[in-house]
């Protein structure tokens, strides 16, 4: 079985500052990795995904993530955040065509 750990439950950051949201996973087999974002009172929106190929993946809204197999990590980064990036961010993993296992989420709070 796989598991996902999001090390930070909350990340406060000032507008236009860079941010990194950390995600580590555990699995005995190859995985697919995802970041989803949940804006207040909304559903889960796919930010980006790693299925195979280049370990640096770019997503929507200027976010990117890097798959590091040796460190079993998939950290999410953005060089300059906006107030509108305030949301809950979920890292998720699946093994092939299986159910997603989610982390507990990181609340990104962007302050002016």
């Amino acid at each position: 079985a796989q598991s996902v750990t999001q090390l930070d439950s909350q990340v406060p950051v000032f507008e236009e500052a860079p941010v990194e949201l950390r995600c580590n996973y555990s699995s005995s087999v190859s995985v697919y990795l995802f970041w989803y974002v949940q804006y207040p009172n909304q559903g889960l929106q796919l930010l980006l995904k790693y299925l195979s190929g280049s370990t640096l993946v770019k997503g929507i809204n200027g976010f990117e993530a890097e798959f590091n197999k040796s460190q079993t990590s998939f950290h999410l980064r953005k060089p300059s955040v906006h107030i509108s990036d305030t949301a809950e961010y979920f890292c998720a993993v699946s093994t092939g065509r299986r159910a997603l296992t989610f982390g507990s989420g990181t609340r990104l709070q962007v302050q002016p």
Partner: protein
Amino acid sequence: EPEVTQTPSHQVTQMGQEVILRCVPISNHLYFYWYRQILGQKVEFLVSFYNNEISEKSEIFDDQFSVERPDGSNFTLKIRSTKLEDSAMYFCASSWTAETQYFGPGTRLLVL
């Protein structure tokens, strides 16, 4: 852009009552899922559905739960006799290849 839709957005019910949550997956998607998120907790997998049968289910998905695809567009989750602990946000998701899942906005279920 095609989206997964869910109805109702909110439902309040009495303990012991049956509820049916409805989802319209993205057209031409073949894989369908239900997840739930109890307030303040992780998003948890319930069940996946493919080719008119359950392909995977979690230990949460007991005999009180059932899923159905009654026609070519809807995908439903039925809870036969609701309990207080069924109060949660329920998310439907769909996928074309089972590699990437797209989520609906959710139904917030409150059991009194």
